[in-house]
């Protein structure tokens, strides 16, 4: 990626006894789409509001474009926020809402008209200008709120869970649109959500947060397939977390004993010595499930299906393997139907991710 646009250095913030941010540091590249992802109360919204200038940090610095902005008031940061509840002013119609910021900033009337018209057209909400916020649908409110921010031509766009108040189908559509829009405009965008699927779909870079700290920063692929610890693995997507013990190490190849079987794994990241406790993170879609007796092929486990759900594009099975329950997804069940009874699971050596330590406790 190109140059750093926003730099957050060791940001800390407390509300009374509650430490909302505990030394958060992150670099955000210019033009990127960065997401703060985490459960509620993890500090992600506080981070966003601090960038917007609604909260002052107790400690640490924020730079936008190389300029220290700790003491710059909200409206001089050129970082415009779209609120979770949209915060459309109920006493103004949609047109007045969108024009509000320009008017406050004393932009000439003619230019206001031009910019509002262009933004409205851009977001496809023509004809709503004279309606009041209460008279339009949730999706339209969402676009109007986005328009009110974009019309300011901000350097940084801040989005606080803007899709959480929409129904599932609309959310999917707007998600795709938002990604496209951001790429086209090239505005550095910071997005806050607790929805991991949304984060994976939209972002160039994800910062997973928990209890006021960033746990891992990485691309969606990295976050999903190479989680740094149990928290990330568990929070992002569905993962089978299987405890085991390293028995052998041979260059990049390790063998892990999970009780019922020994799995061979190619794991380039961690330095794990034989005898060490580990947890295997196996994504359901990486597991092969078959009814045919596979015999003693590589990394295969024998199990019994105890439950399943049919989701159309895939069938998710719960398979009991000894004392473990393993979740496995089978895609495109159109010709296979639903399996029952005994099955064989197999995992490719380079599709298993190894985390150090047992599943509980570590965070």
């Amino acid at each position: 990626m190109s140059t750093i646009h926003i730099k957050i250095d060791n940001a800390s913030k407390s509300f009374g006894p509650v430490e909302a941010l505990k030394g958060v540091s992150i670099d955000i590249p210019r033009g990127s789409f960065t997401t703060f992802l985490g459960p509620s109360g993890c500090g992600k919204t506080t981070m966003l509001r601090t960038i917007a200038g609604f909260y002052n940090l107790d400690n640490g610095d924020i730079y936008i474009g190389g300029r220290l902005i700790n003491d710059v008031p909200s409206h001089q940061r050129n970082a415009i926020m779209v609120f979770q509840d949209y915060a459309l002013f109920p006493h103004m119609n949609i047109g007045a809402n969108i024009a509000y910021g320009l008017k406050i900033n004393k932009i000439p009337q003619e230019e206001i008209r031009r910019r509002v018209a262009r933004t409205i057209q851009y977001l496809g909400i023509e004809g709503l200008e004279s309606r009041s916020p209460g008279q339009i649908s949730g999706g339209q409110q969402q676009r109007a709120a986005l328009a009110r921010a974009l019309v300011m031509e901000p350097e940084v766009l801040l989005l606080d869970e803007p899709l959480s108040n929409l129904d599932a189908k609309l959310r999917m559509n707007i998600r795709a649109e938002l990604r496209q829009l951001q790429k086209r405009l090239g505005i550095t965008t910071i997005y806050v959500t607790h929805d991991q699927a949304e984060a994976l779909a939209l972002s160039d870079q994800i910062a997973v947060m928990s209890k006021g700290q960033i746990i891992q920063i990485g691309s969606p692929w990295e976050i999903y397939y190479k989680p740094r610890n149990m928290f990330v693995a568990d929070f992002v997507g569905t993962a089978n977390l299987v405890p085991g013990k390293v028995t052998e190490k041979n260059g990049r190849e390790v063998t892990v004993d999970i009780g019922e079987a020994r799995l061979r794994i190619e794991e380039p990241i961690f330095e794990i010595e034989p005898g060490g406790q580990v947890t295997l993170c196996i994504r359901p879609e990486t597991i092969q499930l078959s009814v045919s007796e596979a015999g003693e092929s590589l990394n295969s486990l024998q199990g019994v299906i105890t439950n399943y759900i049919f989701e159309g594009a895939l069938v998710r099975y719960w398979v009991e393997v000894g004392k473990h329950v393993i979740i496995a997804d089978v895609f495109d069940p159109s010709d296979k139907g639903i399996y029952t009874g005994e099955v064989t699971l197999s995992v490719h050596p380079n599709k298993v991710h190894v985390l150090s330590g047992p599943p509980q406790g570590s965070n």
Partner: protein
Amino acid sequence: MLREPLLLATVLVIGICLILFVLYPIVRVFTYPTLKDFVEVPRNIRYLRAIRNSLLMVILSTSTATLFGFLFAYTVTRTDVPLKSVFKLVSILPLFSPPFMVAFSYLMMFGKNGLITAHLFGLRVSILGWHGLWLSETIAFFPVAALVMEGVLQSIAPSLEYAGRNLGATGFTLFRTITFPLARPGVAGAALLVSILILADFGNPIMIAGDFSVLATEAWLRVEGWGDVSGAAVLSSILLLPSLAIFLIQRYWVGRSSYITITGKPSQVEREPTKWFVRWSLFSFCFLVSVMVILVYVALVAGAFVRGWGFDWTPTLQYIRSIFSRSPELIHSLTFAVAAGFTSAAFSITASYLVSRKRFPLHKLMDFTCILPAALPGIFFGIGYSVAFTRPPIDLYGTAAIIILSMIFWNISMGYQTGIGAFQQISPSLGEAASNLGAGSMKILWQIEAPLVKTSFFSAFIVSFIRAVTTLSVIVFLATSSNIVATFTIMNLVSDGFYGKAAALTTALLLIAFTVLGLAKLLIGKRMELFRI
């Protein structure tokens, strides 16, 4: 419903009581005078003057009380000035004090022989008259406006103000373009509410207005001076119409155009610090007003312990002793108000249960009749009882019953609305589940719903009790020597210049009101919802 005799009986009892004790007195006020009495109103100079004066006071006092209330509410909810908790307390206490108290106290402080005007500054001025009334009403009623607007300001979603700031509006621009426009319906609602109270105000003008008579006091003088009940009825009728109109506007128009239904999730709000001169001005303003409020209580308590206010400042306990030794009025006030408060709470919560949970004929009318007393000036209600129940077929002249009944039904609206609010929050499925298991309607009320609305019942009791123990306007036409209550005696004592005993009695009333309030606060704590306006 016909299969549930108990429910049927309850509906009938409530309905008959409402007709007899709310609707019938209203009708009697209008039917008591002859048509000629109404027609002659434009020719009576005293009437015209009272109308003009009332109008003037409504405009003046409503404006100042609303402004004061707004500034108080804004200071408490939006700034970080010191003494905020004091300001909050100061804007609550007057709600639970006798309405005439402010005027009485200012008379002692700023009157012809007042402590501050005559004795501290040696001025030969008197507060008696319209300007004194203006001041008293402003101080007496701004708390109502403050209470309403605090709620309004608090319910504005913080994200709206954040969004405004984020887009470039700071300081006064933010206030002008976002905060105030959002609060405007609330301000209008508060102003209308306050104007009803000021229009109906009897206690302040009777004490401090002197010759400046308004509709409420003129009606009283009609009876007191000329024995002209028809005239009083005519004047109260004139008073009722604008009250009712404002009440309906407030309830059905302003109530609907509110923005406060659109809210976001509350977040931890860190406000932009207000500019030092704004803070400082708001603080000084609230401080000054608070001093004026506190002065009211100081004067009353001090007055109770001084032999002759204005000429003989020797401390004495004679007034305190006298109200305990040979005054039936305090005992009456207390017992009547307990009886009225309890009955009123039970009545109004039961009525609110019927209206929110049951469907029966004239169900809308019951709802309206329960809310109606809130719109009735106390003077109107009192004269209604006087003409309806002091002669056959129902003659309750001089009895405790007539006073208690008037206190019960004048106060049902508050409890009723608290009850409606409570029942709205309880899912009807609880009752449905009980019914499914075999409970009848009244069993459901007592076994399932009543325990859940206990707090509302308490609140209703407290509010009715305090309003009953402090009311003057309602009982002024009903009190006789046999059923006299403290507020009536206080009025007479003040007009005869016996400030010491009047102050002692008022202090006793305050003590009773605040003790009950304090006990209630201890018993039910924060869940108490006393003023649902």
